[in-house]
């Protein structure tokens, strides 16, 4: 019954919010398979203010770039939002590489070592979808099979590589 109620509320749900002419809820993640290093190199381009909102939610206190604990909190946000599963369904362990701030954009770098092939992989990128109903996450995959783009909205499940 509870489940059914939720569905009704969504059908009549409001959300005309995208009205703000210049705020777009979009992230872009590049997932590149480095065949020489046998690693999956992941670069996320996130709006810095969205990331700070997610960090505040994660840690329960406002933190900004450069403050102690910020990178750890960003990593927690990213690990919760971005999951890459191997062919057997096991998630890859992501290792922290670092982040870079460019005024209104933050670049986040993580990688998964020891990935000989991406065959049968699936992934999901839900970053910020819990904060913004209009959030769209674009993922560009580059591997031996070429380039592909996958987009995720709130509620989307795993999609094949």
């Amino acid at each position, binding site marked *: 019954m509870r489940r059914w109620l*939720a569905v009704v*509320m*969504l*059908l*009549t*749900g*409001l*959300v*005309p*919010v*995208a*009205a*703000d*002419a*210049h*705020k*777009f809820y*979009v992230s*872009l993640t*590049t997932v*590149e398979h480095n065949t020489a290093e046998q690693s999956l*190199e*992941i*670069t996320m*381009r996130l709006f*810095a*203010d969205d990331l700070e909102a997610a960090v505040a*939610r994660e840690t329960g206190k406002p933190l*900004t770039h*450069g403050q102690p*604990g910020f*990178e*750890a909190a960003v*990593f*927690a946000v990213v*690990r919760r939002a971005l999951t890459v599963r191997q062919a057997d369904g096991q998630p890859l362990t992501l*290792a*922290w*590489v*670092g982040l870079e701030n*460019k*005024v*209104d*954009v933050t670049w986040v770098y993580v*990688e998964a070592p020891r990935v000989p092939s991406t065959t049968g992989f699936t992934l999901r990128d*839900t970053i910020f*979808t*819990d*904060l913004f*109903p209009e*959030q*769209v996450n*674009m993922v*560009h995959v580059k591997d031996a099979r070429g*380039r*592909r*783009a996958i*987009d995720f909205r*709130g*509620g989307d499940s795993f999609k094949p590589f």
Partner: protein
Amino acid sequence: MTRYTASVVAFVLAIVTPAFAQPQGAPPDKFRQLEEILPTPNEQRTASGAPGRAYWQQRADYDIDVTLDDVKQRITGKETVTYYNQSPDPLTYLWLQLDQNLFRKDSDTALTAPAPSLERPTFETLDTLVNRDFDGGFQIAAVTDATGKPLPHTIVKTMMRIDLAAPLAPGKSVVFGVAWSYNINDAKRLGGRSGYEFFPKDGNYIYEIAQWFPRLAAYNDVSGWQHKQFLGSGEFTLEFGNYKVRITAPNDHVVGATGVLQNPQAVLTAAQLQRLEQAKTASAPVLVVTPAEAKAAEAGKATGTKTWVFHAENVRDFAFASSRKFIWDAQGHRSGTQPVLAMSYYPNEGNPLWAQYSTAAIIHTLNLYSRYSFDYPYPIAISVNGPVGGMEYPMICFNGPRPEPDGTYTARTKYALISVVIHEVGHNYFPMIVNTDERQWTWMDEGINSFLQFLAEQEWEDNYPSRRGEPKNMVEYMTAPGHDPIMTNSESVKELGNNAYGKPATALNILRETVMGRELFDFAFREYSRRWKFKRPMPADFFRTMEDASAIDLDWFWHGWFYTTDHTDLSLDDVRHFTLNTKNPETEKTLQRQQQTAAPTTLSAERYRDTPKLVEQNPALADFYNRFDPLAVTPADREEYQKVLGALTDKEKALIGSNKNFYVMRFSNVGGLVMPIILKLDYVDGTSEELRIPAEIWRRDASKVSKLVITDKVLSQVTLDPKLETADTDLSNNFFPRKPVMTRFQLFKQQQQTTPNPMQQLERKPGTDAPRPQGPGQ
């Protein structure tokens, strides 16, 4: 670089062989003329892209009384509209836009919204989903004719049809009235291009009021009635007209609006009047309402109402802002012969940023945009701080960025404010004056405006952190499979920011810097702006004018950048080096010896080099051939050469002796988009030069081309697009000889390995020296 020596004859043959055979399978002609896609020119819109001799547009004048209810957050208004039918068609009904109906619970926007994520929803998300208590949308109280008699009308979602008693003939006008009210949305909670913001700290509101009155839908030669329903993304297309608006607000509010205040004596204090007068000739913003006065007003309550009267001429819309929290600054400016008052309205929460930057950014914008289009024709230009992140209306715009509550601010907030003020004030030119149809084509105002915004930002300070405009910033979007062409309707575009703002802004920047050159582009762009000032251009009018004024065929550019999703990825496949065979034995045999020496020694040859050989131990086995050097110049060689020389004219001798290097470069087009080929030629002597080849090199074969480059000096390196001006998406094939190109990830990682990251610097626990190998939380 591969080196070839070719005889003169063979070389000449290689040139005359037809190099541009069309590949089989008829690939698309990237230079196909656009005429077959664009609408046929007519008396309203000419083939040159200008308004035709029979161009027409409608006009609507408004006379409005409106009351702002600060207790119930409600707007109540009545308007008398005079609608002038300047079309050649009789009209039996009129269509009006009811944009507030977007906020009705049964609006198409609400019904078609995608499901949000229900994983870990925030309280704010749950609140907007569950507590859907906002009763939005217009309540239409009356629609009457000029005598007050009710007119039949039908509401269709965000549109309303008014049926006229008799058809409105061409050249005639009709007067009618509408009375309405609506509840103002909480813009912080529900979003929207207008609305209120509540400040719990002092119990006050800021109102940014727009799309607040029933407005005439556009009727034009291209769409007929433009009454495509408002779903939230496609903004507005409206008719020009004159406005007389009387705004009744609490008597302690400060009101800013589209238009000139007609009754300053009735609504301002003597001190404010005097400051406003002083501002007109000031060289820095003058505070008409000071921060202290705004603070004092916040603590008080209204004792009645005041009515502010504004008149605006030749505008396509009208918006206003009202609050007792407003600080108000003003500075006089002149655009051509037009005196302008640049003004900002903001609460104390907007400082320190707003006092320093808002009005300064308005004036910078007017200066820059006027230089590229036309003088600003209005007497007022306003920037308001409130709940709306960024939204434009004639003479007034709403801009969101604010410092932190503690009075500090980040660089991000500072540049966000300057950028959004430039952008929104810039919209006065596009689309408020060059009146494009935003409901149909977002790029025509957002793309063109984002392009000029980039120019304004680059003239604000060195290395201004512009988000859009640089070609390299568009590379990720343009390689995304499944993205939309720019020529996609506003409501259907998936990534509006990249599609309608970023990509067209980048395209225009490339057109200006790389394809047309600044002088030709600026002339043509100014011509487009001038032709369509206070008129309604369509995409074809822009495309045609830019060609018409520049004599540059741009159909390939419009086609590739606006109608397709091709991207730039040119590849420099190889470079072959040819030199002339001089027939001079001294030169040629020396060259051959050099090549022989440079050839690799095989492993076996190397290992046998020092092994004693039989012929050396037993000289009786040696003969002529053991002593013969085939590369030694013989008297017979010299004689032969003299014979060849004797047969040549002086001109031919000079040509052969010119010592030129011939480089044949082969390119392929991987991304599909044809673009100019920009080359940097580095020579072995350390010098370099640039070679710019127009896109027309691709006109017969858009997938493979070759180019001959003749030089005196020997090349060491050729680089394609060395200054990243074409949005080339794959740089790894831009070098010959090839150079490794690192991804952003690899560059970052390499740089991280050399310097400890901030975490390692800041968070290293006392007593431990080793940086953690796995990063945080592992």
